């Protein structure tokens, strides 16, 4: 059953990989300048996808999301030119500002990936402390009503 599941998962991943390669080949054949812009612009995401082996590849997804946001304006700008050439695309993307925006956005994605877990941990700890405080208050109220016999009974039933 587990084997079947993993085969299914592996199959879907292989299908997804294959569809990416097919899209890339199609793009290479139909719109080479766009393909060149994407390959150069999404280079940090490609590296992240290659090195991130964690389940769900959250780091790669983080980097990719912001990286793509940085690349998207230049793709749109490229598409607005009536005659798209590889030279025009190359010229456009190898400008220092364009590279800084695309790779900077990828870097922000990586920073977001690093910063989010400690923030969530702090939120969870604060919530737990507040709950412990509430429970202790409730216990003190019970002891006030029932006296020491409550503690004795709890100890006895605990033993």
């Amino acid at each position, binding site marked *: 059953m587990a084997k079947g599941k993993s085969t299914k998962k592996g199959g879907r991943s292989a299908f997804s990989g294959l569809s990416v390669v097919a899209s890339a080949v199609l793009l290479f054949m139909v719109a080479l300048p766009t393909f060149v812009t994407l390959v150069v612009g999404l280079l940090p995401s490609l590296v992240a996808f290659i090195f991130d082996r*964690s389940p*769900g590849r*959250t*780091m790669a*997804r*983080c*980097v*990719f*999301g*912001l990286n*793509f*946001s940085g690349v*998207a*304006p230049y793709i*749109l700008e490229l598409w*607005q030119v009536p005659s798209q050439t590889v030279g025009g695309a190359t010229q456009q993307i190898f400008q220092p500002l364009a590279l800084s925006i695309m790779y900077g956005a990828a870097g922000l*994605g990586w920073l*977001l*990936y690093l*910063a*989010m*877990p*400690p*923030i*969530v*941990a702090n*939120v*969870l*700890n604060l919530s*737990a402390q507040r*709950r*412990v405080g509430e*429970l*202790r208050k*409730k*216990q003190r109220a*019970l*002891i*006030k*009503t*029932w*006296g020491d*016999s*409550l503690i004795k*009974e*709890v100890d006895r*039933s*605990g033993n």
Partner: protein
Amino acid sequence: MAEQAEDQEQEVSSGAAREPVMDAPGGGAPAPEEPDDANPEAGPENVEFSTGSKSIEIGNFRVFLDLRMPEFDMGPCKAYSADNLRRDEGSAFAVVADPALPTRQEHINFLTGMHMAGQIDLLDSEIAYWPPFGRNTMVLFYEKPAGGRVVTGESKKATIDEHEIGTVVIEPLMGVLQSFGEKNLAHRNIRAGNLFYADPLRQKVVLGDCAATPPGYAQPLVYETTARMSADAAGRGSGTIMDDLYALGMTLAELGIGHRPLSKLGDQEIMDLKLAKGSFQAIASQERLPLVLIEPVRGLLCDDPEERWGFAELNAWLDGRRTKPVQANSEKRAARSQNLSGRDYYTVRSLAQGMAKNWVSALAPLRDGTIEIWLRRGLGDNDRAKALADAMRQLQWAGADKRAAEDVLVARAILIMDHQGPVRFKGFSAMVDGLGYMLSYDVQHGRGPQRFADVIVRDIPAYWFGRQEGFSPEIQKLQQVYKNLRYYVQQQSAGYGYERCLYALVRNQHCLSPMIEQEYVVEISQLLPALEKAAESASEDSWPVDRHIAAFIATRLEDDIEGQLMAMQNPSDEVEYSRAIISMLAIVQWRHGPDNLQNLSHWVARLMEPAIKVFHSKARRERVETEIPKLAKRGNLVELYNLINDEQERRKDQSEFVEAVAEYSEAESEVFDLESSGPARLELAEKVGQQAAAFASTMIALLTVSALFLMHIF
């Protein structure tokens, strides 16, 4: 072995060697070996009390402490002159019961206020403070017979003509016996020394007291049947009308010969003679009986109760008709003797008595089969021999306690030899219907309850019942009474033990709790007033219910208090223990009053602290604590008990407490989980944080693309 036997014998007879201390509670102990019948005026009774007041008012009577009437003494119970304050005619006397001896309740109830020809009139009975004793005791008030005592001891000559004995003595006494018989009672105090002339002309006699002492306790040994004479005086048993008829026979003999038969012989000699020859032959061989009395004396002194004369034969004799002759001695005599501790025995009953007296040395001839062979060959009694063989076979199955099994064998062998006789066990000797009185005597005279407990735990009475032949309603009744005794003795907790047996067996036994013993509490209704008095000087930490009081209540109260007794089994559980005690006392007050018991209520209130713990809620406890002093002031134990036993409130408290405990435990476990889940939470935070970052990144990408697309369109 012989030395051991001697020691045993000394031990057995040591009780009888105690010197009686007269006019002190228990001063009658031990049994009156020689009542003052022969010389009633003897003794320093006339100057014995030196109380400030010379008379004391008890109920409707005034008793004169300095006017002793020794002719009406009943064993250790002294008689005093008394005046009936409600009636002018006639005079009365008071018999002051020895508080260390139980009185006979059924007889007091039967005789009080009733006139019966042939029996002295019992006018009243009261439990009252008796100054010479410095404590309460039972006082019985009798109408003084007009003619004085029949046997004065002054002359050797008979005071009643032998030809008039029928009308003067036998007729009134037969009337008494018939009346007692109708109530299934036996007088057990019929003797010449207890006969009084009812009238100054001395035409009829009346019998004296029969209620102040245990049955047969005050009887000289010669008046007891061969079956009962070997029992200790206190354990001679309630008996039946057949025992009274035997005593009547001996009374006729004494009146006929002018002195007590066999008075020159000691008790042991009398027993030996009666066992060897039979009662009538024993008397006839030593005394000169008037010719006219030989026939009734022979008939009434027959040792076989089946053959003994009854009312039909006596009436026939009074009418001058001939009656069937009775066998003088039905006891079978062996062709050869059985020796035990240097003495030869020829009959089974005498051998049984010899074995009881020589307990240790009796075992050897039983174990080596000598007695069994003697029964088969010497007496030709195969039934007894077989029963003895069975008893010995059971000895082989005995467990680790071989010694106890050997004692049981000797006790059973004695019962095989003498199945009508008393239960005898290592010095203890009492008829089965006298076990309660014997226990009472032992407990109140320093011997303790151990001998009785041994007899019951070893189940000797059950063997006695098994040896009885034929159906007898009396024995059936006794079996019912003794059914629970073994269970009681084996239970260790309060409300059971020998104390329960004592109050179950002796109806008129006063409560022996040290707190109220002086008050002579016989009825359950007297208990709380006595405790109220005791509460005035009770120590702070003592409980108002001890083993004796618990057993007394369990026996005398009509309600079932087994639940409370069960709760008292564990004194370490203070809550249940105190609740059980308060509950018991509250039931007694509810049933028998009195309504106001302030001292006892305060005593109980002091001890209620553990019972308050029955509530868990602090608020409820505080409410109960404030209520207790108020209710204690009102002296009502029932209200005090209800305060801690409000079942609805208790149930509510309990269910709320259970909920609170569950709530507290849940909170505790949640806190524990929260405090101990730090690393897991970090792990979770990392996972969730990464997922959140990925989600945010994806959303930013989607928003950017959407914004750019929209900008391009518009």
